[in-house]
C-alpha cells in the first residue's frame, strides 16, 4: 500500500493504492495525515473507530470524515492507519485503528473536509486505487 499527494488548485489530493480495498483505505488515510504533517514522531496511543455507509465510495468518505472528527475531538493526528472493510448486503463497514499523535507535539496544518470532487475508488489489475481531494 502506498500514497502520493497530488496537486489541486486550491487544495490537495491523495492518490493511494493497496492490494486490498482495506489497504487502499488505510493508505488514503495515511495520505491525509501526510497532507497535514510531514514529519510525524513515533509517539501517541492507538485508538479504534468503526464506520458504516451505503456504498463503497461513501464508506471511504465517511471513514476519512470520521478521522477528521477524531482529530478535532481527541486533539491528535491519526497516523499509521489500519483498516478492515466488510460488506453485508447493502451495508459497508470499516473497522479501523489509528495512532493518535498529540497535536501539541507537532506542527500541522488543517484539512477541513473530505470531498467527493473527482473521487475515484476502483479495482485495477494491480489492486485497489483511490483518489480523494481534501479541502484545505
Amino acid at each position, binding site marked *: 500500500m502506498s500514497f502520493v499527494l497530488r*496537486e489541486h488548485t*486550491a487544495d490537495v489530493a491523495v492518490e493511494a493504492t493497496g492490494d486490498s480495498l482495506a489497504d487502499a483505505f488505510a493508505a488514503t488515510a495515511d495520505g491525509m495525515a501526510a497532507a497535514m504533517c510531514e514529519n510525524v514522531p513515533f509517539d501517541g496511543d492507538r485508538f479504534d473507530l468503526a464506520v458504516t455507509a451505503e456504498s463503497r465510495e461513501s464508506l471511504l468518505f465517511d471513514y476519512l470524515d470520521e478521522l477528521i*472528527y477524531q482529530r478535532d*475531538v481527541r486533539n491528535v493526528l491519526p497516523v499509521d492507519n489500519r483498516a478492515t472493510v466488510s460488506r453485508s448486503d447493502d451495508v459497508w463497514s470499516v473497522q479501523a485503528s489509528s495512532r493518535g499523535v498529540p497535536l501539541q507535539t507537532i*506542527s*500541522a*496544518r*488543517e484539512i*477541513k473536509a473530505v470531498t467527493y470532487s473527482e473521487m475515484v475508488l476502483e479495482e485495477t489489475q494491480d489492486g485497489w486505487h483511490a483518489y480523494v481531494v481534501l479541502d*484545505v
Partner: protein
Amino acid sequence: MTTYDAGEFTLEKVREYVWKIPQTGEMRVPGRVLASEELLAEISEDLSLKQLKNTTHLPGIQKYAIAMPDAHQGYGFPVGGVAGIDAENGVISPGAVGYDINCLPGSTDVRLSFGRRMELEDLRERFEDERAIVAGDELTDSPIRLFTESGTKPVYRVETTRGQTIQATAEHPFLTPDGMVELGDLGPGDQTIVQPFRGLEHEDPEAFTILTEDDFADANPQLKRVLTDRNLLPLRSTDEELNYLLKILGFHLGDGSLGGEGQLWFYGEPEDLESIREDVKSIGFTPSKVYSRDRQHEIDGSSFKATEHSFKTTSKALRRLLIELGLPEDSKISSEFSTPWFLDRLADWQQALFYSAFFGAEMNAPAAQHDTNLYCPKVSQNRTVETVDSGRQFFEDMAAFLSDVGIETNEIESFETDSNRDHDTIRLRLGIKNDSQNLIRFFSTVGYRYNRDKQRRAIKAIEYLKRKEREIVRRERIASEVQARADGGEPVRELKEEYDINDRFIERSAWSGREGRPRPGETFLDFEDFCEDFEVQENLTVTTTVDSIEHVGEKTVYDIGVEHDAHNFLANGFVVSNCGVRMLKTNLTYADVQGREEELVDALFEAIPAGLGGGGVVQTDVDTLEDVLERGVDWALEEGYAVEADLAHCEDEGVRPGADPDAVSQKAKDRGRQQLGSLGSGNHFLEVQRVTDVYRADVAERFGLKEDQIVVLIHCGSRGLGHQVCTDYLRDIEQAHQGLLEQLPDKELAAAPAGSHLAEEYYAAMNAAINFAWVNRQLIMHRTREVFADVFDRDWRDMEMELLYDVAHNIAKKETHDVGVDPEGRPVGEADAVDSEERELFVHRKGATRAFPAGHPEVPAAYRDVGQPIIIPGSMGSGSYVLRGGENSLEETFGSTAHGAGRLMSRTEAKNIYWGEDVQDDLRETQQIYVKAESGATVAEEAPGVYKDVDEVVRISDELGIGDRVARTFPVCNIKG
C-alpha cells in the same frame, strides 16, 4: 461578436468585462463570467468554467450562474461563484395523502392539470409535457422538471382515518400542519394534509379536427387571422387550447350571456371570475376587468339587493369561435342548443372540463337533505315546448357521460312551469344519485369548476361522507360480530360492555337481526354541523389523521419534481464554512506601529489560537455552544466579549435568524466546542494593515477610514463545526435525494428541494453555523483589542477600535431579487423572460461577497445611505480592499461581488517553489511585513505569488459597478495557522 476560446468553452462577449457561456444541452440558464481577458485566461486554466456550467443544471436557478473575477476551481461550485435559486416552499400532490416529490411507487396517482391524474410510472415518457398540481397558497399547476427512478426501496402503506391510502418510502416527506415531515417520523394519530379531489385518469384523446377555416368561410379574414394566430384554427381534439375552450364554453352555457356586438359576458363571484379570466388569457384574449354593480331583484313579490359581478370579452373572433363550438346565438330557452357535436368523441377528462364548468355555474352545492343525508345535486333548465327535445338530449348526453365515468344519475325529470310571456316552457332536471359512494365519486372526480364555494363545499361533503361511510362499516362489523357471539351463547350484557356503541344497537343486532345497512347512529354529526367546524384551506386541502403505517415490501420508487416551489433547490456542498471577514478600525497611524511590529505580531500570535489543535479563545460546554448557535453575537454581548456597536456594524446585526442548534449534529458540536475563537489554518489569517489609498473620500469618511490609518482584518469561518454541518447534510441529501443527484453532473452539487424537510433543516443548521462564525470572529476581535491595549498600553476604546463591518463570503441566504418571468409569470432564464418580478431566492455565494447598494433595506442603518461595506482580503504580500455595494450589483449579480484574490497555483506547486522561511524573510526585508505562522508550509502555500492579482479583481468589480473601490490597505503584520 467577440468570442474567447477557453478550450472546451467558447465564451461570447456581452460587453466589456462580461462574458457569457451560452445555454446549451441540460443547462437551465446561461453562465456568466465577469473578468478582464487577463483574468479570464487564469480562470480558464482550471475547472472553474466547467463547474460554472455544472451549476447551471440546478433546478430553480435564475437568470445566470455567475463567476466573479476571482473565480477558481472549487467543489461542485466554483469558488467565486454566485447563483440565485428560487426559494419558495411548495408541494405537489400525488393524489391521496402525500405531497412533495420523492420516492413513491409507480402506481401512485399524480394530479395533473385539467382535472386529470396519471400513475407516476406513466409520467416517465411524457413528464416534460405535463403540468402537475401543486398545493401552494392556492392550488395551481406547474411544469414537471424532473423524473427519476430511484431503485428498489422498502415501501410503507399509510392509511388515514378517512380511508385514504398511499404508499411511500420512509424518507418521503408529507405535508402536515407543522410543515413537511418524513414518513419515518410519522405514526398513527399524527396529522397530515390531503387534497381529496382526484380527477379523472388521463387518456390520450382520439385525434380529429373540430373546426377548420371552412367553418369560418363567411367571416372576414381578420377574424380568421386572430384565430389562426392563437393556434385556435384549425382546432383539433388534441390541442391544449381546446381544453380551455371546453371550460369557458361549459361555464358560459350556464352563467354567461352574449351582450352587444362581439361581447361575451360571464357572471359569478369575483374570485371565480378571476379564474375564468386567467383561462381567457391563456388562449390569447384580453378579458375586461371584473365589474361590480348593485342590483335590485324581485322574486315572488319580495325584492332584495344583491351585488352582481361580471366581466366581458369583446373579441368577435372568440365569440364566433364559441358559437361554432355550440354556444347558442339566441335565447338559451328557445334555441335548439344541445350537446356540442364533438363532445362525446373527446376523452372523458375533456368532457369533464365542459360539464364541471357547467356544474360550477348551474348545479346546486352539496347540502343536507336531513341530518346525515345529502341532497342529490341537480342541474335544471327551462326550455320552450318546441325545443324541449334538444334540452332532453342535452341531459341524456350528460347522464351518459356521467355513467361512463361511474357516476349514477336519477331519471330526467320534467315539469310544466309557469310559462313566460312569450312561450310555454318546460323545466328539465337531472340529479346525481345521493348514495354516499356515488356522491364521493362525483365530487372527487368531476365536481364543480370555476366555483370556489361549491368546490370547498364538495371537499367537505367528500370528507363527511367518508367519515359517515367508515362509521357505517364499523357498525356493520359490530352488528355481525354481536350476532355471531350472541348466537354462540355469550350474554348480551357482556357484549354491551365490550363495544363502544349504544345498548339498543347491541340488542337489535343480537336478537332481531337487521335489514340493510345500519345508519351512522344518533350521535353522528349532522352534515351542516360538520361543515361549520370543518376547515378547508384556500388551496382546497384538509387535515386528516394517520390511522396506520405498515411495511408492504420493496418496490421500485420514483421521484418527480415540479418547477413551482417544491422543486427549487437549496444546494449544499458548495456552501461550506461560512467564512468571512471583518475589519476592525483604530485611530493609530502607521507611525504609531512602526518599529513595534515584531512585538505586536508576537503578542497577537501568542494570544490568538491558530493552526491545528490550537484550541479556542473560550472553552464551551454544550449549553453555551447551543446559545452561541442560536443567538450569535448577542451571546458575545451578554458575556462581555462585545459591545453594542459591534452588533450594529455586523451583517444581520450579528444574529442570523432562523438558526436551529438542534439541526446541528452532535459531531459538529463536538468539533466546534474546542474551536470557538480560533483562526484555523489554510488561507485564514489575521492581519494588521495600514490604509494606503482612499478612492472615494466621502464614502471612506462614512466608513471612518483615512490614509495611513491602522486597521485589523480578520479572515476565518465557522471552523470544524461548519465543515461538519456541510459534510453531514451533504451525506444526508445524497441518501435522501439519490435519484435527483444522479441527474446532476457532479455529486458535490448535492441539493435538497426547497420546502423539503432536509432543505429546511440544512438552512437552519447553516444559519446556526453562521452565528458560530460571527462569534468566532468576534472573540478573535475581542482578543485583538486586548492585545493592542497591552502593547500600546492604552484602553482599546481610546484607540477607537471599532468594528467597520463583518461580512460572510461562503453563505446561502434567502433574499428577494428581481428575476425574469415568462408570459405566465413563471420564473425563467434570461433568454425566455418577457417581464420581471420579485422572487424569494436562496442566493448562494461561494467565495463571493454580498454587495448591496445604498438604499437597500438590508444594509445596516449605519451605512444605508452609502452602501454596504465589502472587505476583500488579498494575499500576504499584496493589499486588501474595502469596497461598497455598487449600483449595478442587484441587477448584475444578485447583489454580489468578489471575495478575494483567488488562487493561481496549487499548494503542492507553491511548496515546491517557495520555502516558508524565505518567504517570511523576504516579506520582512523588502516590504516590512511581519509574518508569523504555526506552520512554515502554510506560509509557502500562501505566498503572494500563488494568488491572482487582487488589484485587477477589484478593478473589474469597480468598473462593472457591482462593488466600488473605497480604500486599499497594505499588510503590516500577519498571523496565520
